[in-house]
């Protein structure tokens, strides 16, 4: 056989994507960023990850010099992060053999790890949990254990904070070592021209795929149940996607950061294009997102962000799909319930149980909606009823598909979930339902789905009481909370 040529760029970039799949495998969400804050590869779990992983790397590099092996920790949504329970660990990495400890590393390896949320009914982020601004926790090979200990002693700090941080940093160290070895063995090229070529090639392919959608412009408004306005001017033309949220108002509960909004815009379009391309700077080039500061799509400190970065991001992505359907009639979607129905049972002894319920997916011109599936979340927990019942003083009475909760139509909307829990000791229940009073509408004659709802059935009583969209309730032993997530709207006139 003749001596082979150097690998063609297309093959090389496809191979590089496989490498990232292996390198990022142990992490839920991760990104490799260049010194210029261009994402080389992003692995995401949810919509905010897409926009906030690059965001947090950018903020950190603006204020701190991260040398090779240095590690910075932050969970601050207003420093580019996601919710307060998402810890971001950023490590400086040199992949081209440079070892100057005094200059910033060529790349930032950013890993996000999600801790168990704790619901707080609050008006400011400071009461949502402990907020950690970008903080160097390892410099020149030395861990700042004192500082980590101080953070871990904060009353709102998650219990396993210290061990989690140590384990994730150790895993990052191993992966960096592996990336370096793989780079050497397979002659991977991290030079700026090669990366520029990677981004250009990705951009070209993504643009080409985007051009399969009809081009045009649509302006659409949505009024949230609390009365605030979400407004979007979406323009798809010449291979670019422009999102202008000018005119959107502030919100009472749903506060998205700019990064989360950017993530929702990119995530929604990626889902429609169904692209296999890796998420890197080449794809980001295609998007332009304008979000007025102080509006619900670009919240200002100190607005709390938990509900916005969970339910709000999904609501925004669903809204974008609605807008898109008006530009491209081949891609029409019914409405989906955006709420994950987060709820929290706080028992004595600092024991708290947190859970969410997945809504049903909306039907679309492509088929029926999937039952009990939030399409904007990649990793779905695999909880165990038996484990939950062993750890917490409660009995899960049932957990099932909420039959007939999806809207009917030629294509039915996906059904939501029903869960009933009886508590064995007194506790405090907190919950949040977004858009509780607005039924997810059908499309093209499809019917609306059922809304998310929460009921309390007191011990010994047959009647159950419907509760408001969010709140707090002191449950007594024997009381039962019954929660229903919404279905998805149906598509097409029902026969």
């Amino acid at each position, binding site marked *: 056989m003749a001596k082979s040529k150097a690998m063609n760029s297309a093959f090389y970039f496809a191979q590089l994507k496989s490498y990232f799949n292996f390198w990022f495998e142990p992490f839920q969400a991760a990104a490799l960023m260049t010194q210029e804050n261009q994402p080389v590869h992003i692995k995401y779990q949810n919509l905010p990850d897409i926009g906030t992983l690059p965001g947090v790397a950018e903020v950190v590099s603006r204020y701190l010099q991260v040398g090779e092996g240095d590690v910075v920790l932050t969970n601050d949504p207003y420093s580019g992060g996601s919710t307060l329970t998402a810890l971001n660990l950023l490590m400086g990495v040199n992949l081209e053999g440079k070892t100057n400890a005094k200059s910033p590393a060529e790349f930032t390896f950013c890993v996000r790890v999600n801790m168990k949320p704790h619901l707080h009914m609050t008006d400011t982020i400071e009461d949502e949990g402990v907020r950690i601004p970008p903080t160097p926790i390892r410099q020149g090979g030395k861990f700042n254990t004192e500082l980590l200990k101080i953070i871990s002693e904060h009353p709102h700090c998650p219990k396993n904070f210290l061990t989690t941080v140590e384990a994730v940093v150790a895993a990052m160290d191993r992966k960096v070592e592996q990336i370096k070895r793989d780079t050497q063995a397979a002659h991977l090229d991290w030079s700026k021209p090669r990366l520029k070529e990677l981004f250009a090639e990705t951009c070209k392919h993504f643009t080409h795929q985007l051009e399969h959608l009809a081009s045009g412009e649509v302006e659409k408004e949505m009024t949230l149940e609390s009365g605030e306005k979400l407004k979007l001017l979406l323009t798809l033309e010449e291979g670019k996607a422009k999102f202008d949220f000018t005119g959107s108002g502030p919100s009472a509960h749903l506060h998205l950061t700019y990064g989360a909004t950017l993530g929702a815009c990119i995530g929604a379009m990626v*889902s429609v294009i169904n692209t296999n391309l890796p998420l890197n700077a080449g794809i980001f080039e295609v998007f332009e997102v304008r979000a007025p500061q102080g509006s619900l799509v670009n919240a200002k400190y100190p607005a709390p962000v938990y509900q916005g970065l969970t339910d709000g991001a999904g609501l925004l992505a669903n809204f974008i799909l609605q807008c898109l359907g008006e530009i491209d009639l081949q891609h029409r979607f019914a409405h989906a319930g955006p709420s994950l129905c987060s709820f929290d049972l706080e028992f004595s002894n600092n024991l708290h149980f947190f859970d969410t319920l997945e809504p049903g997916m909306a039907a679309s011109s492509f088929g029926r909606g999937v039952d009990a599936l939030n399409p904007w979340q990649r990793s779905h927990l*695999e909880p165990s009823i038996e484990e939950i019942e062993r750890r917490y003083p409660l*009995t899960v009475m049932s957990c099932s598909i909420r039959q007939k909760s999806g809207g009917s139509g030629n294509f039915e909307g996906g059904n939501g979930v029903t869960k009933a829990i009886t508590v064995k000791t007194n506790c405090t229940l907190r919950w949040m339902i977004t858009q509780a009073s607005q039924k997810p509408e059908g499309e093209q004659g499809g019917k609306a789905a059922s809304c998310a709802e929460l009921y309390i059935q007191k011990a010994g009583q047959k009647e159950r009481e419907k509760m408001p969209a969010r709140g707090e309730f002191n449950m007594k032993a024997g009381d039962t909370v019954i929660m229903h997530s919404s279905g998805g709207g149906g598509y097409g006139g029902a026969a």
Partner: protein
Amino acid sequence: MSWTVGLYVGESFAEIAAKQDEGAHLPFQRWFLPHTPLDKGIQKYLTESGIDSVRQLRVATRLGRQMILRRLGQTPALLVTSGFEDWPEMNLPIKDPRFTIVPKRAAPPLANHLIFGLAERINAQGEVEKPLADEELEFLVAKLQMNKVDHVVLGLMHSTMNPEHERKAETYLRERGFKVYPSYAVNGTGSEKPRWWHATLNAYLEPAFKDVLKQISRGLGELGGEEPQVVLFRGDTAPHLDNWQAPLGSLFGAAQVFDQCRSEASDAVLYLGLEEFFLLPANAKSQVDWMSDFGRVYLPHPETRELHIQPTTLIGKSSYGCPNLTFEVGGFEPGPMCFGRGVKPLLFDILYLNDRLQGIEALRNHLTERMAGRIRETLSAYAREASNRSDFLSQDICRWIEETALNSLACEVRAHCQSKRLKLQGPLSPILGPLLAPRLPELEVTAFHAQNPPLAEFLVNSEVG
């Protein structure tokens, strides 16, 4: 004279080897199952070798893995605590790692209409909160009979804390002729779903394994002496006759053999077979669960890494407009294009075009030269977009895909081998080993066994408790 026979049953290949009780070995045979069925292959080997008495036949197989992967088993009914009928299916993983408007959940080895609820409840402390009434079971039997189900899995909450209700249902159903798989017997896990999946998969695989056992019996025919003991290798317990009743453990039978045979626990073993590649990391700890494509399954086994790159990994068109390896395994049905039946190129076809497979005896008669042109055409068609802007030939494509496969293998081995020493084993190891070694310069890469014997010989020589 009595013999011990080792038999490895793959998806498309089988291997057989024999050892006399006095220690003499016979050369092994490997054959292609679509051409020679299992029973005929066994008969042929015994006859040609003059074996007239078999003391023990030791079987390892990847049949279960294939049946689960391709969902070819027999779907049983599942009885769960009322209120949790949807629970097994509600958290099935989404296949796609990216956002998509058409997400699909992994298909479970169950059917919705065959999951029934039983009104009963045992709590986390093992106390009966709601007793299981006979009427519940009576009604259920009628439903099972109506659905013509004879394999029934029991998955009641907290049955490992208190198996009372499952035992009651088990007795009741057995008396009425059902084959019952209670989950209380799976007592190594405190989670209901891994336990339910374990019991379900045993029921799902049992009919096919029963059939294999029949084929083996036919293959053994009328031998002299005592009836041979046909034992099945598992990943957790010693090989045994009874293992045929709970065949799920056979998924890691081969891994268990290599785990036992390695001389140093600090050696990692990379098995490069015709049908599968897997890695046994060094100092392997026993694993409790197996991560199937539909969720966690309780299945104790030696720590094993099922590699992403497999011999029958499908080649598809990448998002950059060139052919590349997918994460999908094509298997041998219909198999590689070079065997004359497949329609999609596999890594196997790339190895064939790169002249890597010529030295493998068992493949020689199955490789179809006329297919080479068609494989090249398919690859060139996949590469059309990328080749518009550059000049390369189909040989280059094959080289680059092979290079990507080797790099991926090296990357995964590096990440998980946990050792400085890597031992290679399997029919493809003499071919792929020299190509892999330069990609793993930090490891000492050597053969597991100088003669690279087949798995069947390891079975024959392994210690059986």
